[in-house]
């Protein structure tokens, strides 16, 4: 069904060809041409690629907040990150910790796509960032101020950092994008996939000429304490699918992907990491925190249907794979519901990155794209013995070479918000 193209899309300029697919009335193919990554195992695409290939662990003792009184407090923090390397236009003190990660990753994605500042500024586009906690790290700090002196003492500059909408608007402001729709999607730990799917639909139907989409979160006391209380924080390492796994490690970072139409990428000679083939969304409507096997399986089916892909064609699954007892059993059972007794190799990036919350499925999507481009499968590290109840090949500890045509990226979340994205190798006409 053809869609009306915004009148502003009709202008000339370097990317005016981006509207051609929409004008023809067919949904456009959507490709990924830029990646920006801020993570505990590497900042920027090169470090991140090396990290996921070598099975690097991002674990360190948490330093972002006081962990006194907790018996164990490892996390996966971003260390050695200097936001001024990427954030030039917006005063850094106007940005909370998560917005800094998101904004830096967005600039990296634009540069990685071979675009220079100003090239996107007049084009109709989209910025969509998923998150679990928004700027809860900043709100934690305000609670400390409140306890010390009362809410009258709140610093207005700090308060203005707290809206979750800043994660996306800050990117537009930093990159001087005055004609982009911005959205912060607050669907917790699958929010990165939600945003990628949203960008996919906007570009596919010609409503945006490009989309900067992904996810961002910062570690915070609130969420650490909550998961700790639930008994789901691992004492040392995150060991997805291992028979002795003990839970998650809270992590942080941002992953931002630049999506554009295939026509646009070809016309400007951009390097293509991967094609976004489709995605699925659904809701368990079952339990606030526990996943639901049948609903997760249905979401996988929705994503494969949308991508026009049969289960037998999928070469790799990047699992949500939190490393909790409940998630890993439920998720692998859902995978077997769709794929049968021998599903494709199924890895968890969280073994390296910890659980980066709203950034998780975006960072995993970035990893999937790099895996497709460079022909390897990132390992599930910290792995000793696979839980027979999980029953998958999680590519333990060491990356393997593989020609990947189609990869599925799972995102599951509190509130039963499931989102699954399917990526494919770009190989010309299909």
């Amino acid at each position: 069904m053809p869609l009306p193209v915004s009148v502003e899309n009709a202008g000339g300029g370097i990317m005016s060809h981006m509207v051609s697919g929409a004008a023809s009335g067919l949904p456009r193919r959507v490709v990924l041409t830029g990646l920006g990554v801020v993570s505990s195992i590497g900042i920027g695409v090169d470090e991140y690629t090396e990290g996921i290939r070598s099975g690097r662990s991002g674990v360190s003792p948490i330093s972002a907040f006081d962990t006194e009184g907790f018996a164990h407090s490892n996390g996966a923090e971003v260390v050695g990150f200097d936001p001024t390397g990427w954030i030039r236009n917006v005063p850094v003190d106007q940005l909370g910790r998560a917005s800094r990660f998101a904004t830096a990753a967005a600039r990296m994605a634009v540069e990685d796509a071979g675009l220079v500042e100003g090239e996107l500024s007049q084009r109709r586009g989209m910025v969509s960032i998923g998150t679990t906690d928004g700027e809860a790290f900043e709100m934690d700090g305000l609670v400390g101020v409140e306890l010390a002196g009362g809410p009258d003492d709140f610093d207005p500059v700090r308060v203005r950092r707290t809206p979750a909408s800043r994660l996306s608007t800050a990117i537009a402001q930093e990159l001087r994008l005055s004609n982009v729709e911005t959205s912060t999607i607050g669907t917790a730990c699958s929010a990165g996939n939600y945003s990628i799917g949203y960008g996919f639909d906007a570009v596919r139907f010609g409503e945006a000429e490009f989309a900067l989409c992904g996810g961002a979160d910062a570690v915070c006391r609130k969420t650490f304490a909550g998961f700790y209380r639930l008994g789901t924080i691992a004492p040392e390492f995150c060991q997805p699918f291992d028979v002795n796994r003990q839970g998650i490690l809270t992590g942080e970072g941002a992953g931002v992907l630049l999506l554009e139409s295939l026509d646009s990428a070809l016309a400007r000679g951009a390097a293509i990491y991967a094609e976004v083939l489709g995605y699925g969304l659904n809701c368990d409507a079952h339990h606030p925190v526990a996943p639901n096997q049948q609903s997760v399986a249905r979401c996988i089916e929705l994503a494969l249907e949308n991508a026009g892909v049969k289960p037998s064609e999928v070469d790799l699954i990047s699992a949500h794979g939190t490393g909790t007892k409940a998630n890993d059993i439920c998720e692998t059972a859902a995978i077997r519901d769709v794929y049968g007794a021998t599903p494709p190799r199924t890895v968890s990036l969280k073994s390296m990155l910890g659980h980066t919350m709203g950034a998780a499925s975006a960072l995993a999507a970035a990893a999937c794209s790099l895996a497709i481009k460079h022909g390897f499968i990132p390992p599930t590290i910290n792995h000793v013995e696979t839980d027979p109840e999980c029953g998958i090949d999680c590519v333990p500890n060491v990356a393997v070479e593989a020609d990947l045509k189609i990869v599925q990226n799972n995102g599951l979340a509190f509130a039963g918000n499931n989102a699954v994205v399917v990526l494919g190798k770009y190989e010309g006409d299909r």
Partner: protein
Amino acid sequence: MTADRMMITGWSVVSPYGVGRDAFVDGVRDGRLTASDVDTERWQVPDRRASLVPGFDAREVLGKKGTRSMDRVTGLAVTAVGRLIKDAEGNQVVDTGPDTGLVLGTTTGSAQSMMDFTRSTLTAEQPFYVDPSVFPNTTMNCAAGQCAIWYQLKGPNTTIAGGRTAGLTALTYGRRLLRSRRAAKVLVGGVEEYSNARSWLDFHSRGGDDAVLGEGCVVLLMEPADTVGAYGEPLAELLAVETSAYLDNDLRPALKARVDSVLAQAGVDPSQVWAAVASQAPDTTNETERAVLTEIFGAATVNRITTGDLIGDTAAASVSFQIASLLAAAERDPEAAGKVVLVSSVDRSGTTGCAVLRLVGQV
């Protein structure tokens, strides 16, 4: 192009006039102000006056089952969604299930729930002596997720954290879900609660100016024109919606560009717009927004229907309330039938936008 025409075929509201459409329609018809003195026993806030949903208590409205740990914002959303899906006798009148989406605008879920939880880890004897049953309330998608559980909404379930413009983003998101056939119908709206935490954050954020904060939830039922019929006659058509960031605090050109763009997409001349409803934020953006709209539409069109002055700043619910006030007008005013209307919105953190609708009217 019928599949791309989106119709609003139902709505529900929990507002400072009370629970339900009748209270809201009567209240806005009479132009009754809802602000009252803040109960300083209950609220420790910098505000003198506020527009609260009168006597709202989730346990009283929804019953004791499933509400023990429910926070205010979730209670408002579950109540409003329930009023849309069920009739007064409790019979389900809108079917749910996998083809029904829910898109809910918020600022940050419940700032109160988030900050309460952090406070408890800082003040308890041990930092992990926190109540696990309220931990899910600290995540922004709690309200939408609870609505799904209450009413078995198994389709796409999306929380948009957008502040004052969240309602426009939710409309855009919902329209895309329908266009891409990821849902056959969507519930789209916004929710905001009044709380100590929100009051203090907003007070410092806006620079300490006086303001009346409001609260509530509005949910619209939106369907593609080609499948309308099962749940009621169309009340309005969404002709166009668009949002953008604005740079350098320079709201004026950004809002003007959005208004021009949505009018062009809708094929509507400014003179055809019967009412342009501003968002009336209690900050410096208010004057600019009003000036832009008045320049384009004239004062009579901007003054015809207002909302924020009646029910206060409902933040993430404000756009949905602006639309609700137009739907309310269409219910009572024969003149409104068939009219083209516009709602605009601004969030001081740097987003603006507007939507154009055509009221169908019931008269």
